[in-house]
């Protein structure tokens, strides 16, 4: 936190010697003693969980790379050799493959938490934007990694996603060929994807450091969403260690238990059976779908009838997150005190799940029952095509219509003066609809 006084006192001679030359121990100690709001709930533990997810992916990835062969002839067999012959290789590979899914579960919870408590608002815009950069890099890394086993879904996923670039007018085609290193997805593509898949996690690590730096500069948000005034710091803040190390640790272990259930008892449940069929450039699987965590964006891509338009919509759905801090006009951070917006927020989460559901279905399939209603432009109203379109519309309306206008029109609940107040006065004290006062304190 800005203005956080260093409390580290070097004790031994070695520590003193080091402290005047490279104050790395001081850095770690200050990090651990960082004053943190004491009302952070379990939704705030996902930052620590994500850090561990990143480390797990990097470490298992390094060891997997020791046995992986990035050639079209050898990739599939080398992955199965890891599964069969390398000591504990099945464990490394299943942890890495399921770890990607766990990483995305955690990042979606983390982002939705930030959205709910207004963690993107001033003075924390940079934390949010760096987080969006991490999210974008995660998607890229996950996509590159999914190609490496060289199964049918790997190959056709790479085919379809690289073709998105080809949708760019005029320059699309040359860029596409450059990206693939040839007219088709082949050895050159696989080899460069492997190289980039190895590189990007370290880039993510670097951005995570910046993300934390920004966090420690502008301070941790909290569920009440108010800035903690200087004179309340002693009462409302506690040092990060041991309070949040142990709380994050407990939440992490619950998360790891879920992770272990997937790795040891249903390791292929989150994947697709077709990816155990070696890549065949002459035969497309009957129904190709991306990994579950990409489905909402894949649905948005398919919602737009125009090829380039679909690509723009999909990247726009991620891009809009970057400008979120300037779309929300409300002075109140936490949606706990914004009853109207809170309903739209819950609808947004459900809408995201619907988009994910749509992304895994055939566009023409009926949503309810097995009947058709009437044809609207290019598809039946009772089809996933139209459900996807309505959901896409809500996704963008949430950012471009609801956040700007509800923020101007709504009447927020009265906001407590300190994070301790809700307890002292009981929950009834919060229900009166009194306009927001909080920002006067900030």
């Amino acid at each position: 936190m800005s203005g956080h006084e260093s409390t580290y006192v070097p004790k031994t001679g070695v520590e003193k010697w080091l402290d005047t030359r490279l104050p790395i121990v001081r850095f770690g100690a200050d990090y651990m003693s960082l004053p943190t709001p004491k009302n952070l709930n379990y939704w705030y533990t996902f930052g620590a969980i994500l850090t561990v997810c990143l480390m797990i992916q990097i470490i298992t990835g390094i060891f997997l790379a020791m046995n992986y062969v990035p050639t079209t002839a050898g990739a599939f067999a080398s992955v199965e050799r890891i599964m069969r012959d390398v000591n504990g290789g099945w464990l490394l590979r299943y942890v890495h493959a399921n770890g990607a899914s766990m990483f995305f579960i955690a990042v979606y919870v983390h982002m939705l938490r930030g959205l709910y408590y207004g963690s993107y608002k001033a003075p924390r815009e940079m934390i949010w934007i760096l987080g969006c950069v991490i999210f974008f890099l995660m998607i890229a890394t996950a996509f590159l990694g999914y190609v490496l086993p060289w199964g049918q879904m790997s190959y056709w996923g790479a085919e379809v996603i690289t073709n998105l670039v080809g949708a760019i007018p005029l320059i699309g085609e040359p860029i596409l060929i450059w990206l693939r290193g040839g007219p088709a997805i082949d050895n050159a593509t696989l080899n460069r994807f492997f190289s980039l898949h190895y590189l990007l996690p370290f880039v993510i690590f670097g951005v995570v450091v910046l993300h934390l730096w920004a966090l420690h500069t502008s301070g941790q948000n909290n569920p009440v969403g108010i800035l903690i005034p200087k004179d309340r710091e002693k009462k409302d803040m506690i040092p990060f260690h041991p309070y949040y190390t142990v709380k994050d640790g407990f939440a992490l272990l619950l998360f790891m238990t879920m992770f272990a259930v997937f790795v040891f008892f249903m390791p292929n449940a989150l994947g697709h059976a077709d990816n155990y069929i070696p890549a065949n450039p002459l035969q497309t699987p009957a129904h190709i779908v991306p990994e579950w965590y990409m489905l909402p964006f894949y649905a948005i891509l398919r919602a737009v009838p125009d090829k380039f338009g679909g690509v723009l919509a999909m990247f726009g759905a991620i891009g809009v997150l970057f400008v979120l801090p300037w779309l929300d006009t409300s002075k109140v951070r936490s949606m706990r005190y914004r009853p109207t917006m809170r309903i739209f927020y819950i609808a947004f989460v459900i809408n995201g799940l619907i988009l994910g559901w749509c992304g895994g279905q055939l566009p023409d399939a009926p949503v309810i029952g097995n009947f058709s209603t009437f044809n609207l432009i290019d598809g039946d109203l009772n089809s996933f095509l139209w459900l996807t379109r309505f959901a896409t519309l809500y996704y963008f309306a949430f950012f471009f219509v609801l956040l700007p206008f509800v923020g101007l029109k709504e009447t927020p609940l009265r906001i407590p003066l300190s994070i301790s107040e809700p307890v002292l006065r009981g929950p009834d004290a919060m229900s009166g609809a009194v306009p927001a006062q909080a920002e006067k304190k900030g």
Partner: protein
Amino acid sequence: MAESVVTNEAHHGAPGGPEGEATRRDFIHIAASAAAVGAGVMVAWPLINSMNPAADTLALATIDFDVSKVMEGQQVVITWQGKPVFVRHRTAAEIQRVIADNNASDLKEPQTDQERTKVGHEPFLVVVGSCTHLGCIPTFGTGDFGGWFCPCHGSHYDASGRIRKGPAPLNLVVPPYEFTTDTSVRIG
């Protein structure tokens, strides 16, 4: 949503309860920390172990070879576990010379020729073709002792594969092998 809220505002800072509970409190923290260390070891082991030879590598540990293919006075180099193995069919003169040298004073690792061959198959010498100095492959039939000479740093081996001169500390290694028939050896 307000789950973690404060009842005792005055207390802030050091964790824990009253003094009397110190022992039990410490035990919990120590046990939790010990479990964390245990978890670290449990995580580290599969990672380290994954770098050990894999099952397919270990499965290639034995090979069969027909020694009747080696002409007298010649050697054949075969590959065993990724390393060269010399199978040498020695002449009577060569055998005579190495037996005479069994007690030579320049042997760094004294061994008799009989210890390095199989009874009844004395003409055949099977050694790993990797210099015991730093692993180069010695060249056949050169050097001061009629065995091998390592071109990298000048080690001289006799026709029993024993180090006689130069920086190598040990004799050429005899791999585990046996004659499965009169003319067939199984190495490994």
